[in-house]
């Protein structure tokens, strides 16, 4: 667009066409995203039950008060945050290391890159069931190997023991989702301008200082994006937990809690409130995270400038 904006007829007609073309998509979004979300929000202020949704009455903030007073809910919040923090940190760390390796030229790199993606390609429910059998205390392969190696003296009940269940969940999630982090970070690595490295080579910089002074700062945006993607996903964690440890209070996440209220207890009011709070917690964490990242990025920009 050059020159002062002049609302001439073609432009206005073009705007009309744009809206016309957008309309089906907007309508679809309204139906599949906005409508269920708003309905959930509405139900969270009512005493709706699955027995008779039409009989729902407005109860104000009672459902939210109930949740905030429920130690089980707080435990699910804590579980979700612990799960998110630990699994995302491990996935980004491991993912970055693997991405750096895969970024080098070496024979067989193509097949290896494809192979790394396999855990990510398996549906979560399938991999959760599979790990469930592998973690089985009596005939699971994990115990068999560790016993053979002499790492443990007696079989360990990975998913049953209250202390180990969360660690087992995180381990499976790391196994499954690290490839996703690898994919995102590898894409970032391949976009780094080669001339910086050439210049560093001329200056005689060591590999470590190239990594710390070039790769790391330039990769910050990619790392930030990968971490936020993973964190959003991890906070919604449902299927893995539900399949592997069920409604066990020790590992119950916020999404599992909401499902239990909605379907096991048929309590649409409290369940919707739990879903709404999950949404709010995710929004809050995202906002805090983005603010922090933006502050740090702009600081970095100021220094570099």
């Amino acid at each position: 667009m050059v020159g002062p904006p002049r609302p001439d007829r073609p432009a206005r007609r073009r705007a009309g066409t744009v809206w016309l073309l957008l309309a089906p998509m907007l309508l679809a979004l309204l139906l599949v995203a906005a409508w269920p979300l708003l309905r959930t929000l509405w139900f969270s202020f009512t005493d709706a039950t699955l027995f008779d949704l039409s009989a729902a009455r407005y109860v104000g903030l009672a459902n939210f008060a109930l949740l905030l007073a429920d130690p089980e809910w707080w435990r699910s919040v804590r579980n979700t945050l612990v799960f998110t923090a630990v699994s995302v940190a491990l996935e980004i760390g491991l993912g970055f290391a693997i991405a750096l390796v895969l970024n080098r030229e070496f024979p067989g790199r193509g097949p290896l890159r494809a192979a790394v993606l396999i855990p990510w390609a398996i549906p979560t429910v399938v991999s959760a069931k599979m790990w469930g059998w592998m973690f089985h205390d009596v005939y699971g392969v994990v115990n068999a190997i560790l016993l053979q190696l002499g790492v443990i003296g007696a079989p360990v009940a990975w998913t049953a023991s209250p202390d180990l269940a969360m660690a087992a969940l995180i381990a499976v999630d790391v196994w499954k989702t690290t490839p996703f982090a690898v994919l995102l970070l590898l894409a970032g690595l391949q976009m780094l301008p080669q001339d910086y490295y050439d210049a560093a080579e001329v200056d005689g910089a060591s590999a470590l200082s190239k990594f710390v002074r070039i790769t790391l700062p330039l990769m910050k945006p990619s790392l930030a994006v990968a971490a936020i993607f993973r964190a959003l996903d991890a906070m919604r964690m449902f299927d893995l937990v539900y399949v592997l440890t069920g409604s066990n209070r020790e590992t119950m996440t916020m999404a599992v809690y909401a499902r239990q209220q909605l379907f096991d207890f048929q309590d649409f009011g409290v369940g919707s409130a739990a879903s709404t709070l999950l949404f709010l917690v995710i929004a809050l964490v995202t906002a805090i995270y983005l603010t922090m990242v933006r502050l740090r990025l702009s600081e970095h920009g100021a220094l570099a400038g």
Partner: protein
Amino acid sequence: MTKFLMLAAAVCGLVAQGAAAGTVSISCSALGKEYELCKGGAQAWAQKTGNEVRFVSTPNSATDRLALYLQMMAARSPDVDVFQIDVIWPGLLASHLLDLTPYVRPEVKAQHFQTIVDNDTVDGHLVAMPWFVDAGLLYYRKDLLEKYGVGVPEQWTDLAATAQRIQDAEHKAGNQRLWGFVFQGRAYEGLTVDALEWIASSGGGTIVDGSGKITVNNPPAVAALDLAAGWVGKIAPEGVLAYGEEEARGVFQSGDAVFMRNWPYAWALANAPDSPIRGKIGVAPLPKGGPDGRHVATLGGQQLAVSKYSPHPDLAADLVLYLASAAEQKRRAIEGSFNPTIANLYKDPEILQANPFMGQLDAVFANMVARPAHVTGSKYNRVSVAFFSAVHAILSHRGDAATNLAALEKALNAIGRNGRW
């Protein structure tokens, strides 16, 4: 979701209108052989009576199925006439189900086990017909008991002693993987079932009594649960805290457990041609809790119910009576090992030939105890979750039974508004 269901219902309604006037739709479970048998039976009825039957698929998971039923019923959908419902649902769904009393002759009703008929009767209305029954059983390794010259345990303490003895001896002999006892210890409905058997067999009641009073915090219940907590890590693997039916069967069927608590379905599988313990197992009633206790088994199984919103309730009720009849239950027992709800069928030579173990079951079925699904109505699942969470904490050695049951009593009083429900 509701919208979608209503749309689906509307479409199905159009289809139904196009068909003959007498089209009854039935929802059957599709687990294992269930769908095939249900279809066969319903089609036989259709041919006999000149009507038509339509089959509605439902999710395999009981919880998901309940949610779907509730959504259909809340929308007063005429889409499904006959529902297959779990034994713990009559109290939950009663307000949407037709009273079958006018359709069932008293002598037909009297054929069925009284416990199940009572379970399916809500406020004097017979809201469902018993279809097949499940009960907790004690599976044991005949060969191992014979080897050590011990009998089938009569009491839970005997079971623990026998299990410990065989386990220790076998470990010494090099069979390191053998455990004494496996059951359903995961935090889910199955643990409610198992723990109810421990408590009820010790005279500790059924969590909530018939009048709605919360009775779970009593000395026999405390003793029974402390006893069970002592098994975990000793005669039962610590992993039992994550076992459902199939995980327990996996251990037992691999030959790695002396005793197992499970439903009747495990019999056929454990005796399958590829089973390592084929022919080496026996079935007995679950042990008593102490000399004054009794053998009990928690009631499980499925019922058939007619929707209140059915456009042709008479036809639907007729189909239900046909499917629940002695002849049809006999066919299902022979072809699919489903346990009849009619006491006389346990003496039927053809059924016993197909399923020899059923001859031992009538004593078990005569002593069934129902979960308190009735009196707690729509709050049953909350009660069950609170109960199995407390039991799971006890079994995980996080607090003793007395502490956990006191806390549970408080929680149940809050859920049940001090017994008014």
